Structures are given as structure tokens and as C-alpha cells.
């Protein structure tokens, strides 16, 4: 009888566990040996950061450097799971009204001062008062600090987004001894100069609109990290130049690339890797917004006919090279709250024309039913302008004459949106992780305001208000998903906006870059594990 079979099941399990353990250790050792320490990584971006303090400034441009300079209580993996970061433990109360953070011992800021719960409390209240996403910390009442390593965030209502709000891009922990000097934090001089955080890299140089140079922080609270010596964020407003820099090997990573021509061309380059991962948290959706205060767009039948006359597959495949998948919901498909059971509008020109006839918009002698204008967000042509031009030709086929209006720049377009000086507009909307942060704002009737990226469509459905408010105040994910499922169905049926596609952001990197950030926040995350092979 073989010896193995004579062993007790317990000893067999033990041996298996030991073997697995040894294999893991060997693998970890091999991985550790693979990682090369040192070197300078260059990240190229078109986006210009106003300053480096992500506590008072949202957006990817600031998040990129801010997440390197400032640590946050938690970080997230690529499956939306919270991971310890500055807080080694955390617990959310069953009623969803308090979150306790237990900070690491010995963590220090770049100036050597220890990080305490006072800094956490100060940072969270600063974010609540100053961050552009007011719903993110809106329910927070106060932060208690029973001891230097414990912070308890108290909320007046259950706040299901509070854990996600502890992400590096959303909750940088600021040193109170610097930013708590009484000056307005939004305009604090230390947002740009001599910035002190506790992230994996410390600031060497910030040249506004040009470059940010960071170097390894030797006393970073995660031992042995970061692997890189230096990280340079190089700004070039011209995306084509960035691509050339990548090809020449001057730049190692370029995130937020969506131009199909670039993606297609660079995919053939054996030195580069192109990945769509890392944009799940941002959740960007291109949509066609309707101004519901204007006729005939206030007529649901017209909006449905327009949706039916648009071939989203053409936009996705032909105009965007297949890099931007079709969108059928206000919630990005990467979100846990996304559902596929929404109202769809299969492309059918004849049906669209018949729908307009039935709605009373008969074609005139010249074949025209009515005229509309379409604006577009003055971003990359392939995402906004080209679809707008396509929609003009598509709607012509059903007798709608569309004039494409170009805005010289963002403020010009934003002004039109804010003042409702538009019929239709192509635009990109970001979910920002939890729907509470990025989705509610464009559908709640309480948020019909003269400000871009609010409910500028003037959509008003009390049932949607109730669903969103309910989903924003219950903690049970299943219950939340049910509310959001009902919301997605109603909104796709009533079409205040028609969802076109999910922005096909990709990160392009040199093959020599190891551990390219691919969590839900992608490159808006700490680069402590990134290395150069």
C-alpha cells in the first residue's frame, strides 16, 4: 500500500497546505526577484492639473499626481473590493451611519510628522466643505478621534458610498499642521508649492501646465515600496505628440487614450501594450442629451424616434474603431449596479419615420419634418464631433434637419448647456464609482440647475427621484441594485438622454513597465507597485 494512503486525512491536508504554501512562497520570491527597483518612469498626459491637492479638486488631471503625493484611508482592487492602505482595518456600522478607520502605526508625512486621526478628521471635513462632488461626503456630520490611530466618521443618514469615497482619488489625507493654518484650502499656496502628503512619492518640482516631478518617499508606510526612484508626469496638450513620444520610447505610459486611429496604429507596435483596464471607476459614457424644455423634444415619441434612427453600432464600430462598446444604460457596464434589462431602440429608419408620422410630425413637401440643432462637447473629435456629424446625416434620413453647432472651447459649450441654449448635445458623463457621486446629479429633479453636468436636460420624474434617493440611503447592495435596476429601465424608456457608447479609454504602456495600474481607478491610483523591467 503506498505510504501516502496510510496517512490520516488530516496529515494529508497539512502536507497539501504546506506544499501550496511553499509554492506561494516560491512564486512570491520569484516575483520579488523579477521586480527591478529604481529607474524613472515618464507618464504622458494631455490633461493639465490646476494644482496637486485632490481634496479640493476632482478630475483625472489632479488625481494622477495627487494619488502619488497623498495616501488615502483605503484603496481598491480591480473587482471593486476595498483594500487596506493608510487604514489597516475598517468597519462600517450595520446601520451605515458610521465608518471606523484604524490607521497604521508609524505612518508619517513627507515632512516626517506622524499621521494621526486628527489629520483624517481634518481632511474629511475639508473634502466635505470644498470638494466639487458635494454628494460624496454630504451626509458626513463629524469625524470623531477617540485616539490618534482611530477615526470614526459619523453620518446623519446611511451612506452606502462612504467606503468607496475613501479611495485615493477621492480622499487624500492632508497634513492638518500645514493646511489647517486658517487659509482657504481651495486656494492654499501649498496646493502647488512644497506639497506635503504621505503617498509613495514626494514632490520635487511642479511646473504648472508643463510637468510634475516626483521622487521616491523612503519612509512610505508600506515597506519596500515604491519600486520606482522617480516619476515624471509630462504634460503635452497635443495627443499626437504624446503618441510619438511613446513610439520613440521617451514616454512609458499614456493613459486616457481613446482615439481609434492611435489605438489601431499602436496596437501593431510590438514594444507597446494597450489595455482597457483601469477605467471602471470613472465609468465614462457618451450620450446624446435632449433639452426637454423645447418642442418637439419634449415629446417622448420624438425622442424615441430619434433613438431609433441612430445606429449606435455604426458609431461604435465604424467611427470609434470598435474600441468604445455600445451603451444602453445610464450606469456603466463595469459597475456592480449596471443591469442589462433596459429599454433598447434597435436601429430602424422606416420605423423611426413611422413613429414621427404617428406622433403628428409629418414630412413637408421637401421631406423635412422639423429642424434641430446639435452641439457637442469640444473634446476629442472621435468621441463627440464625429458622432454629432453622423447623427446629423442619420436624422436627415427621417426628415429631421440638424444643424451641427461647434463651440470654440469648453466655456462656450458649458454656457449653452447651463442656459439651456441647445436642442441636443453630444457629451461624455462620468459615473465616478458610485452612482451617488456621478449618476444621481443628472437625473434628480432637485438638481435642475444652470450649471453644466447637472440635470441640464430638465428631466423631472418623481418616481426616479424616489428610486435614486432610496438607492442612495440603503446599505444592502442587493436592495440598491434593485432600485437602480428600476431607475435604469425608466430612464432608458423616457430618454432624457440617449446612451450612445462607453468611452473607450485605454492605457498604452511600454512593455518594459511592470504592474501597470489596472484597478478600478487605473492610473488615478498610487504607483507604489509599478516598476521598470
Amino acid at each position, binding site marked *: 500500500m503506498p505510504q501516502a494512503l496510510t496517512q490520516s486525512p488530516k496529515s494529508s491536508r497539512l502536507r497539501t497546505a504546506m506544499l501550496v504554501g511553499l509554492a506561494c512562497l516560491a512564486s512570491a520570491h520569484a516575483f520579488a526577484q523579477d521586480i527591478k527597483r529604481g529607474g524613472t518612469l515618464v507618464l504622458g498626459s494631455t490633461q493639465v492639473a490646476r494644482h496637486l491637492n485632490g481634496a479640493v479638486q476632482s478630475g483625472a488631471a489632479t488625481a494622477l499626481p495627487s494619488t502619488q503625493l497623498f495616501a488615502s484611508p483605503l484603496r481598491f482592487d480591480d473587482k471593486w473590493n476595498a483594500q487596506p492602505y493608510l487604514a489597516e482595518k475598517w468597519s462600517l456600522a450595520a446601520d451605515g451611519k458610521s465608518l471606523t478607520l484604524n490607521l497604521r502605526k508609524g505612518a508619517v508625512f513627507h515632512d516626517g510628522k506622524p499621521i494621526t486621526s486628527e489629520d483624517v478628521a481634518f481632511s474629511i471635513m475639508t473634502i466635505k466643505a470644498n470638494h*466639487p462632488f458635494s454628494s460624496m461626503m454630504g451626509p458626513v456630520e463629524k469625524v470623531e478621534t477617540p485616539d490618534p490611530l482611530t477615526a470614526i466618521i459619523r453620518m446623519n443618514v446611511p451612506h452606502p458610498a462612504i467606503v468607496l469615497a475613501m479611495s485615493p482619488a477621492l480622499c487624500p489625507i492632508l497634513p492638518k499642521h500645514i493646511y489647517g493654518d486658517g487659509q482657504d484650502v481651495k486656494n492654499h499656496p501649498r496646493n502647488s508649492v512644497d506639497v506635503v502628503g504621505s503617498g509613495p512619492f514626494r514632490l520635487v518640482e511642479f511646473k504648472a501646465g508643463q510637468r510634475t516631478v516626483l521622487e521616491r518617499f523612503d519612509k512610505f508606510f508600506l515597506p519596500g515600496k515604491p519600486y520606482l526612484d522617480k516619476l515624471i508626469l*509630462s504634460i503635452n496638450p497635443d495627443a499626437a505628440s504624446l503618441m510619438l513620444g511613446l513610439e520613440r520610447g521617451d514616454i512609458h505610459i499614456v493613459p486616457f487614450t481613446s482615439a481609434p486611429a492611435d489605438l489601431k496604429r499602436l496596437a501593431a507596435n510590438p514594444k507597446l501594450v494597450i489595455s482597457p483596464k483601469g477605467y471602471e471607476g470613472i465609468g465614462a459614457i457618451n450620450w446624446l442629451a435632449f433639452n426637454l424644455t423645447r418642442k418637439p423634444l419634449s415629446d417622448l415619441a420624438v425622442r424615441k424616434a430619434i433613438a431609433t434612427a441612430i445606429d449606435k453600432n455604426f458609431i461604435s464600430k465604424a467611427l470609434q474603431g470598435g474600441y468604445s462598446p455600445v451603451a444602453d444604460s445610464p450606469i456603466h457596464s463595469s459597475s456592480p449596479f449596471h443591469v442589462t434589462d433596459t429599454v433598447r431602440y434597435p436601429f430602424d429608419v422606416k420605423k423611426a419615420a413611422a413613429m414621427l408620422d404617428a406622433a403628428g410630425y409629418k414630412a413637408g413637401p421637401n421631406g423635412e419634418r422639423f429642424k434641430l440643432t446639435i452641439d457637442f462637447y469640444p473634446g476629442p473629435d472621435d468621441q463627440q464631433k464625429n458622432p454629432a456629424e453622423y447623427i446629423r446625416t442619420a436624422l436627415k434620413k427621417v426628415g429631421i434637419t440638424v444643424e451641427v453647432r461647434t463651440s470654440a472651447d*469648453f*466655456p462656450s459649450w458649458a454656457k449653452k448647456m447651463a442656459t439651456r441654449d441647445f436642442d441636443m448635445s453630444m457629451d461624455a458623463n462620468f459615473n465616478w464609482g458610485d452612482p451617488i457621486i*456621478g449618476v444621481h446629479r443628472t437625473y434628480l429633479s432637485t438638481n435642475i440647475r444652470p450649471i453644466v*453636468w447637472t440635470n441640464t436636460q430638465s428631466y423631472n420624474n418623481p418616481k426616479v427621484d424616489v428610486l435614486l434617493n432610496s438607492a442612495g440611503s440603503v446599505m444592502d447592495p442587493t436592495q440598491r441594485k434593485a432600485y437602480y435596476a428600476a431607475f435604469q429601465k425608466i430612464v432608458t424608456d423616457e430618454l432624457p438622454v440617449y446612451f450612445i457608447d462607453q468611452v473607450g479609454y485605454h492605457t498604452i504602456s511600454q512593455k518594459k513597465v511592470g504592474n501597470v495600474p489596472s484597478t478600478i481607478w487605473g492610473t488615478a491610483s498610487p504607483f507604489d507597485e509599478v516598476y521598470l523591467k
Partner: protein
Amino acid sequence: MRFFRQLLSRVLQALALVLAVVVLNFILVHAAPGDPVETIAGVSGGMSPELMAQLRLQYGLDKPLYVQLAVYMGKVLSGDLGYSYFFNLPVASLIGERVPATLLLVLGAVLSAFVMGTTLGVLSARKPNGVLSQFITVLSMVGFAAPVFWMGIMLVILFASVFPILPVAGMRSIDSSGGGIADVLDVLHHLVLPTFTLGLVYLAQYSRLSRAAMLDVLGADFIRTARAKGLADRVVLYKHALRNALLPVVTVLGLQFGNVMAGAILVETVFNWPGLGRLAFESVLRRDYPTILGVLLFASIVVVVMNQVTDMVYRLIDPRINAQ
């Protein structure tokens, strides 16, 4: 005494001109749709109305335009250019950081265009119907006709993909740590394409202008006299003819300084050159009023000063003007 009176009069005229430019710029900049707070909300991915109102209050954008203008004029007269709304940094320091890059580019382009354009013009004037003259004429036409931004883009494509021997973006290598002779060489290496692009159109102009002026001067009596005296052709050409032929070129050079600064905006944008032009362009897009106005004020002062310098150089080259 008369000289000082003239000088004082010119300084007062220049000051009045600059102030008028400031007021005009202020009104024009504020006439554009949208405001800086909307831009900040845009780069933030949205913003609450309360925060937007707070920012407008902080920046004084809630006040009537004439009040904003009065506040701004008061600050400018006391030497304060204000804070950039977008970068939250003093405008003076933003401008100060960018001035060297623009001066390097503009002066490099103007001087190289002046020297090369004049040389080519003189060479082609020696034998107006020669092969060299024809070649320079064609070259000038091409240089004059090609838009600056188009030429820049073509050069970027050529030197980025086909002959990757020259850098096509930025002022320094990305991983440059700065300082030392290596840094100077690095900057000069990066300067080649932007300078050539910006200077080409002026090189074409100067060569045409100096050619025409030389042809004119070479037919004058004093040149005939000089030749009759048996002076060497080189002496006649460079000592007697060129000095006189330079007058129109110098005049144009000074008057065109404003145009060169404007051209720098396009070149800096194409080549990602970190100068004032790019700062101005991006500030316009962001409605960063203090920065736009600061850059325009700086440019106005430079143009006014350059006009005065041109006037003085003109007098140095042609003593008859002083005599008059």
C-alpha cells in the same frame, strides 16, 4: 533738453497706449462666452452650485464689469497682475517662468531670420537673374506662403517618424534634470525646429526686402562713385550698399515684433514649447482672465519697447534722421 522732452513725450504716449490696450483687452476677454468658474467645474467633472457661487465671489466675478475693471486697473497700476484663477499661482510668477522660453524662441527666430534673410537677399541682389537668385526667390515664396502651423506640423511628422534626429516637443528632454553645459545643448537641440518654423516666414520676408533694397541702392549714384573710385566689390557691397539697404529691413523688423510674438503662440502650441504663447492660448480656453490679461500686457509692453528700440537703431544706422 529737446531730447528729454521728446523722450518724455514718447514714454507718456507709450504708457497711454499700454493702458488703452489693457482696457480693450479686459473688455474683449470678458465678452467671450463662459467664465473661469465654469472651466474649473469642467475640469472637476462637475461642481455644486454653492461651490461655484463661492468661487465667483472669491474671484470678484459677481461684481459688475466696470467694478472688476476698476479693481484690475488699480492692481495693475500698483504692479500686481493678480492670481491665476486656474493655477492658483501669481500671474507674475507664471509669466516670469515662461518669458525665457519665449524670448529664446522669438529672438532666435528673428535674429536667425534677419541674418540669413539679409545674407540671402544680398547674395541674390548681386546677380538678380542668376540661378542662386531664382532659387532664393522660390524659397522665399514657399516660406512666405506656408502657414506657420502647417509648416510646424509637417516638420513634426518629418522629424518624429522619418528622420528622428531632432526633438519635436518641449524645451528639454523629459528626464532632464537641468543645469550645466549638457542642459544648454539639450535646450539648443530642442530649439532647432521651433526656431526654424517661426523664422522661416520672416526669413522669406527679409530676403525679399533686402534683395529689393539692395537692387535699389546698387543703382544709386554714390555706389557708382564708389565703384569709380576703384573700391573692391566686397567693400562696395557690404560697407556702402548694405548699410543703406538695411534701413527698410530694420524698420520692418521692429514693426513686426508683435507679429512674431503672435506667431510664437502657434509654434509654441505645435511644439509644446513652454512659453508665453502657449500659456496665453491655454488661458484663453480656460477664461483665466488674470493670466490672459497679464500675458497681453507683457506683450504690449514688449512691442512698445521694441518700437522705441527700432526707432533708436534707425537713428544709429541713418545719421540723417538725427540731423533732421
